[in-house]
């Protein structure tokens, strides 16, 4: 059976709707709008048209021949979400939610962003639909993803720096929720990952399922069979759940999520929720959390702003406990090395987030037979990360 939440948005014991009462009615409104839209062929027709003519779907499934030959094991295919308009998978969800905002008559959009990819995708759809757009972004993330801050402003969005807590994604979500609580009658919160209170984890996943639906058909066409392993990075987990979900019932297909291993296993040095966390409630949902003994949320670290978050989407928590998906960590250093390898073997510079998934493929492929097939979800492109690559690959940056 395809994994679906219950009526209250629970994936097993995870998920649910843990928010102040002010937000309960707006969440109910969003849910009923989404359920109506899902049953409306005109909604799907418009979304499909935008995904095709504006965002650039379907994205290719590319056989990475030189990378595979160098690794000497499994055949590695790459799902090219990095080729989408705005440079990452995030646009899939933003187009879907923009259509819902229009249905609800809400013309002000707010969003959080970590790496800035969701912020850029949100600013883009707001320009496209003529919506007012405000994006909350941690000060630390604004510093390390400056290019995306400028892109959002160029697209007409207001970028609000968030100085509380660790000044990263978690704090940007809290600030966006405070804005939503205050301006709920006019504003839609365009949440960017499969996180938060119901219906977001289900809805965001549904908008990204297209990644896995395409990849499944493409690999069947290319190889005449399903892949052995599907690999994706997991911050909140939207690109991963998008590519995993259509494979859930294919029991022989291994699903591997890659979390940020950061600088090491000490609490505060990574964002590996499944390795170092325990269940709890943060920002509307019950899932695995990095927290201390008092239930305070821990600081996290990753070189990649998009994976630097203390919790994870609740459906991943369920897949983890059921053993349907496996979650592993990848260090900052291995991710950067993987980005270099992919750039030089295939001419594809990945986003730092996606580089974590590439690193896991590089680690696994050599010990697999040449009859094995991997699909790596390349969720975003690396232009935004050039400054971080330069800092970490200094030997290449000499004049």
């Amino acid at each position, binding site marked *: 059976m395809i994994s679906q939440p219950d009526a209250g948005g629970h994936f097993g014991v995870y998920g649910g709707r843990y928010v102040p009462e002010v937000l309960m009615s707006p969440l109910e409104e969003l849910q009923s709008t989404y359920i109506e839209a899902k049953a409306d062929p005109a909604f799907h027709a418009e979304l499909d048209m935008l995904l095709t003519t504006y965002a650039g779907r379907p994205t290719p499934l590319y056989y990475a021949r030189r990378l595979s030959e160098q690794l000497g094991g499994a055949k590695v295919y790459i799902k090219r979400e990095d080729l989408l308009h705005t440079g990452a998978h995030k646009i899939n969800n933003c187009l879907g939610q923009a259509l819902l905002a229009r249905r609800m008559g809400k013309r002000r959009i707010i969003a959080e962003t970590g790496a800035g990819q969701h912020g850029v995708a949100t600013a883009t759809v707001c320009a496209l639909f003529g919506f007012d757009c405000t994006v909350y972004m941690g000060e630390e993330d604004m510093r390390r993803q400056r290019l995306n801050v400028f892109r959002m402003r160029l697209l007409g969005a207001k970028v609000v720096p968030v100085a509380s807590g660790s000044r990263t994604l978690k704090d940007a979500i809290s600030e966006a929720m405070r804005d939503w609580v205050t301006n*709920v009658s006019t504003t839609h919160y365009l949440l960017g990952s499969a996180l938060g209170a119901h219906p977001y984890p289900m809805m965001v996943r549904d908008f990204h399922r297209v990644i896995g639906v395409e990849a499944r058909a493409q690999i069947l066409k290319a190889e005449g069979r399903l892949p052995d392993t599907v690999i994706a990075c997991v911050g909140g987990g939207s690109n991963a759940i998008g590519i995993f979900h259509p494979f859930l019932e294919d029991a022989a297909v291994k699903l591997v999520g890659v979390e940020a291993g950061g600088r090491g296993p000490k609490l505060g040095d990574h964002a590996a929720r499944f390795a170092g966390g325990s269940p709890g409630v943060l920002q509307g949902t019950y899932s695995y959390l990095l927290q201390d003994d008092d239930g305070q949320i821990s600081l996290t670290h990753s070189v990649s702003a998009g994976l630097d978050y203390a919790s994870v989407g609740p459906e991943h928590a369920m897949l983890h406990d059921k053993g349907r998906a496996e979650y592993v960590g990848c260090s900052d250093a291995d991710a950067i090395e993987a980005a270099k390898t992919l750039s030089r073997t295939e001419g594809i510079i990945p986003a730092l987030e996606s580089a974590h998934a590439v690193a896991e493929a590089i680690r696994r492929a050599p010990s697999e037979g040449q009859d094995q097939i991997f699909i790596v979800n390349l969720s975003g492109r690396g232009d935004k990360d050039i400054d971080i690559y330069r800092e970490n690959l200094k030997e290449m940056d000499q004049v």
Partner: protein
Amino acid sequence: MSRIGQLFETLRRESRCGMIAYLTAGDPTPEATPGLVAALERGGADLIELGVPFSDPIADGPVIQLAGDRAIRAGTNVAKVLAIAAKIRETSEIPLLLFTYLNPALRYGFERLAQDAKAAGIDGCLLTDVSVEEAGDYVKVMRAAGIDTVFLAAPTSTDHRLKLVAEYSSGFVYLVSRTGITGERQTLSGTAFPLIERMRSLTNLPLAMGFGISTAPQIAAVAGHADAVVVGSAIVRQIEKDPEGLEAFMRELTAPLRKAAIS
């Protein structure tokens, strides 16, 4: 009957609107809190909300966020707040309500929290991010220990939701005067009185109103309609700025309540 129940009976008998004072326990230090609560009581507070700090308080504005940061840095956690409550109970019978977010309570454990809170003299509990839909176990465990469970009702709540909130609440219902986070505002929201009227028609529980209420004129306006008024950020700010002046500040805010009677 619980101390909270007794308080609202007394208020009804005296035709008086009560003052509920919020402070973040442990701000600036856990040692300071019992003295600050005593000052609030002398200044006319009828019930104290002891805020347990949480690292990610999505319903709070900057004043209470910063107080929570200070309290966490001073080592405040659920166990410390319960010790603070026990200390207050040595000299006072003022009703005490724990006010926090779900995760610290979840981590402490509902069963253990209910037992330890009761033993410390806590009378009720409010978890701002627990919707009634997710509250089943929590309410059962707290009620079994004799702890009141207070829930929030909001201007955005439908009548159906207001009924659920009343069903899950005991002691009183906390009405949020406006859509928004905690913090002082210039004017009382237009949504405040209609919410009180809607809730009155659905429940006999006492109704307290808070969020954005910080001045004597706002308190006077609410006093004619609600059974109690909640002040939070203004008190937290006073503690930050001038803790010595807290009693006098509370007395100023409760002045309109000594005059006003429930209409």
